[in-house]
Structures are given as structure tokens and as C-alpha cells.
């Protein structure tokens, strides 16, 4: 069991999750974030603060997100840690609106 970032984060990268993560387990990629499953302590604090509902607890995720477990694991191992929130990507608000959120 862990938490994962899924497709809704792509091209948004709002990073509110980063400032509430107690263990700095978010890693930053070109257009989205990933969670290091080894470090995540399953506190769940990031889920409600994500403006685009991109984060799931793997025990309660819709089936179609299952591939993101391996992606988060792999990408977090390759990419640097993000320790402070940063500005969302340009167009993040548009994507959020397009998602109906």
C-alpha cells in the first residue's frame, strides 16, 4: 500500500501536496510529480489538497490507475526530490477547468 500521483497532475503540477508532505516523498518531473513509495507513510494529507484529484491511496483507487504504481516507483527513483511548493505549470488552471474541477 502506498499513495500514487496519476495523470491529472500532468501539465498542472500545482504542488500543494509538496507543502503538506511530512516526509518529502514527492519527486518532480518535467510535467508532473511522483511519489516515492518507499518513503510515503500513507498519511493521506496530500489527497484533499490536490486541486485536480490526481492523488490516490492504492487501496482505494479506481482500477484504471493501477499502472501508475509502477510508474511512480520508477520515476521517483530517477527524479530529484521537490521540497518546497512551486508555481503551477502554465495552463494548469485551464486544464483544471477542462477536467471540470
Amino acid at each position, binding site marked *: 500500500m502506498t499513495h500514487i500521483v496519476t495523470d491529472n497532475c500532468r501539465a498542472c503540477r500545482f504542488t500543494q501536496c509538496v507543502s503538506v508532505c*511530512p516526509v518529502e516523498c514527492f519527486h518532480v518531473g518535467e510535467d508532473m510529480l511522483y511519489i516515492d513509495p518507499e518513503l510515503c507513510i500513507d*498519511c493521506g494529507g*496530500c489527497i484533499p489538497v490536490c486541486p485536480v484529484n490526481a492523488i490516490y491511496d492504492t*487501496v*482505494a483507487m479506481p482500477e484504471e490507475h493501477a499502472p501508475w504504481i509502477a510508474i511512480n516507483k520508477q520515476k521517483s527513483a530517477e527524479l530529484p526530490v521537490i521540497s518546497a511548493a512551486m508555481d503551477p505549470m502554465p495552463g494548469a488552471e485551464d486544464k483544471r477547468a477542462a477536467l471540470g474541477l
Partner: protein
Amino acid sequence: MPQKRTFAVAVVGAGPSGFYAAEALLRASDDISVWMFEKLPVPYGLVRYGVAPDHPKLKAVTAVFDRIAGMDGFHFCGNVEIGRDVSVAAIQEHFHAVIFAHGPASGAELGIPGEDLPGSHTAHAFVAWYNGHPDYRDLTVDLRTEAAAVIGNGNVALDVARILAKPIDELRKTDIADHALEVLAESQIRDIHVIGRRGPAQVNFVSKELREFSETEGFRSIVDPADMDLGVACKEELEDTGAGDLRLCAELLGGFVHSSQKAPRTCHFHFHQMPVAITGDARARVLKLRLNKLIGSAFAQRAVQTNEAFDLSCGLVVSSVGYKPALLEPLALARDGRHLDHANGRLVENGTVLTGLYVTGWAKRGPNGTIGTNRGDSQETVATLLTDKPMLAANSRQNAASLLEKLRPQMVTYDDWLAIDAREKTNGAKSGRPRVKLTSRSMMLSVHNMLVQPTL
């Protein structure tokens, strides 16, 4: 060459918000030193004494606190209580800034007759008791009763209900206090009643915590189907896009309606009920309740008492309805009484900023959020402090070293804590537990080597 650390900040309290404040300060500038004062000889605050013993993964956050404690410029001053051993005024005179991260003082009361009877506890005290907090180890908890009531619909109420419901062998694998394990092993409790004044659409549970009630072996959970018959306004609230987790909670609670599983203990979730009194002779025997109804439109519903009254026989009542902030002279409460009065993290009294005094964590915003909420919160307070830093640095200060010198004989360092930590883990390993906590100050201090002195 690192710059000399000329700007000294005192952090009051060694819980999550205190550690995250220390981290933000030490990352911000290499001329800052942090002195973390903790009234107990041991750090971690809520993580050690609040987080439930059967949630070990959450406690792994202490590795982050240990990393912060290892940062250059960090000093731990355990076993020193601000307001008792040192006044706020004295600490203010010796440090450029003080951040209060001292959390709550005690649990909020229900404010009903009979609340002071033996067998009635606040969740704050009950949780601190089973987690081995030195100030609560002598709490008299009597579980020779068949029914317990837990009042409140937050995650702390779930922790209390779960600890009362779980089979003792499950708890034996945890770091729950030995004295609590002994009492829980003799528990005669069969029924645990979790009571909320509003409905399933207004719970403050997190679905993740509630799910443990549907997946845990050894006890079952049930809900009266009538309570799940939601009105129009409740349905509207649950359909809101921001109510995703509440919907999950309502689904889980709905699943408890048809529980047919047999188990030695049952956890009953009751809604729309208001406790009005606890009665009994020498101890709590009966919880007197009134039925509530919800009135008002969606998102503005409130619970109103009806005349329908009924009694619940229970020998244990644990009220989990909030916390009271810890007040220290000259700190003042905000108007709502739920946290200290502040503006952007600067402490305020009667509308005037108390120069150099700051607040973070529960003391700042009341008891809410997850452990990590304190990280963002402390970063905000530290950002405010850093704006004031040039002004504060210009104020003349007495050297902190003189004050620390006086406190040195009683002070517990982080190395001392690590020795206590090692002792607890060794004791735990003998019985296959993560640790066996030392639960009194004297036991903790016997490990602390008084000869190890902090370097200034």
C-alpha cells in the same frame, strides 16, 4: 567557512510543528541557531503520544525529525518547561525570536453534568494514557464494563474505539504502554458506541481510518439503517465535488448496515444523538442522550435537540470533541477560543503584535490537519519571522548561553534521547514489539547521562 550563528531562535515544543519550524529556519539561513525546548525528556509530541500504537507506518515520520535534529545549528533542550522552569519573559530576553509550537493543553469537555465521574475521560487523556505519556500513566481506567461510549466523529474517536475493540493479541504487537496493555487484556467491553451529533454526511472521519473498521478481524461494525436514510440537504452535500472523501465515508458506513459477521466485539456507529448527562453513583453508569434533528439548507445544517430522550448503559465514556489550547502568560486566545490569537503567525494580544513571539501548529490553527499540515504551517510562520528578522536582529539581547548554562543540569540532549530510544527498542525486541516505552520522567532521566553536556 560557515558564518557564525548570531540569530538565536527558541522553539517551544518538540512535536511535528516544532521540528518543521526548526527545519525551515535552518534551511533559510546559516546565521540562525535553533534551541528546541520540550517539557518532557523525549521529543516527537503528537507522534509519540497521539498517533495510535497500531499505526506504526505513520510513526516512521520520526526519521525526518531525527534528520532535522542532526542539522547544523539545531539544539534539543528536553526536560525544560517554558512557563515553569523558565518564564516566557526570560526566554524572550535571551532569544531573538520565540516560536510557540506547544500544541493543546487538554481535551475539550462536553460541558454536561456527570462528566467528572470516574469512568468518564477526555480522549486527550485516554489516548495519552494508552500511549504512555508520563502525565497520564496514573489515569484510572476501568474496563470492567460491557459497554463504552465514544463521543465525537473525528479520527481520534475512531482511534479510541479501535483500541477498545481490537483483540488484545493485535495490540501486543504494538508499542502501546504496558500499563494500558494490562488493563485492556482484562477488558470486559463487548459493545463500543461511537456517537455523533450530526449525520453520516457530516463526519470528520477520514475514509482511510474508517476502512479499518470494515477490514479489521476480531470486531464488527454496525450502523442503524435509519441513520443512513439521508435527507435532501445531506445528499446535496455529499454530491459536492469537494466531498470525495465524505462520499467514501458514507459508502463505508452504508456497508455496516448489513453486517452479519459474528465477532466478540461490536462497534456501533450512532448518529443524530446529543449527550446531555452522565449519571452513576461511584462511577459512570448511564449516558443520557437526546435525539437530534438536522435543520437548515445544505452546507449550513445544524443539529437541534428534540424531546426524544433515551439512556445508554455504559461504564466508560470517552469524549473526543476537541482540544483546549495551552495558554502561557502573556499569550492570548483568539476570539473563537480554539487557538492562540495571531496575525500571520505573529502572536497578538489585544490587537497588538507581541514582538518576537510567533506561533505554529495546533496552537496556531486549532486541532486539524494531518502531520504534514504542520510542515506548510510552520514554513508560513517562519517566512513571517524571516521578514521581521532584520528588525529583531537589531534588538539587543542577553546572551542565550547564560540562560542555557543555568538550565544545563536538568537539560536532556538529543544524544540522551537517542540513548532512551535505544533502550526502549532493546526492551521491545525481547518481546517482538517495536519498543517498550519508558512511561515516567524518572525512568527516562535515569537513562539520560547527566554528564553529557550540550556544546554551546
